[in-house]
């Protein structure tokens, strides 16, 4: 991935149960300092998504790395950025915890 260039990535989610599940996802970026350069244009996160029994769906993320990343001396040794998503089952009135230190 080139900083400044938009890129597409896919995740896949499956509901292995016999009940529909409503999930909501949040994301995390490591290394931590790279997270500030990670810009999501569109993704599947933060909104409730319903998965029917046994349903499997593709979940796209359209993003770019801020070109300033290439100028940041602290990022000079970073050549791998990992984006991960965690799916929670949505419950009434649930507040999503921010990933990070708890």
């Amino acid at each position: 991935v080139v900083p400044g260039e938009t890129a597409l990535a896919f995740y896949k989610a499956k509901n292995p149960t016999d009940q529909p599940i409503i999930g909501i996802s949040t994301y995390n970026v490591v290394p931590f300092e790279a997270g500030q350069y990670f810009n999501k244009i569109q993704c599947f996160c933060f909104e409730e998504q319903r998965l029917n029994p046994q349903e499997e769906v593709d979940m796209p993320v359209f993003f770019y790395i801020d070109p300033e990343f290439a100028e940041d001396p602290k990022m000079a040794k970073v050549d791998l950025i990992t984006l991960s998503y965690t799916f929670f089952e949505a419950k009434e009135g649930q507040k999503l915890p921010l990933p990070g230190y708890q």
Partner: protein
Amino acid sequence: MSTAMNFSAKSFQARPPDKGAFPLDHFGECAAFKEQFLECLRQSGAESSACRPRAMAYLQCRMERRVAAPQLMANEPMEKLGFKDLIDEKAEAKPEKL
């Protein structure tokens, strides 16, 4: 995962996406485009730059789907999604075709 006991570090600030969330493609309407894109990534050794035309095709597929469900992606000119150079190439190629 970082385990540094760094008391002055801010915790990770998750930010919402610029253009909101993608509706799920429950019926796999754009699955073929996705497969082509992933095939390109496999062949190029995960070179994102090499596969941008197919990424653009996938997003265009999402924008065009209106049949069974609401649009899978709001219309947005491709230039605004970082594909301006690919559009310019297309525009240049056309006059050359005789």
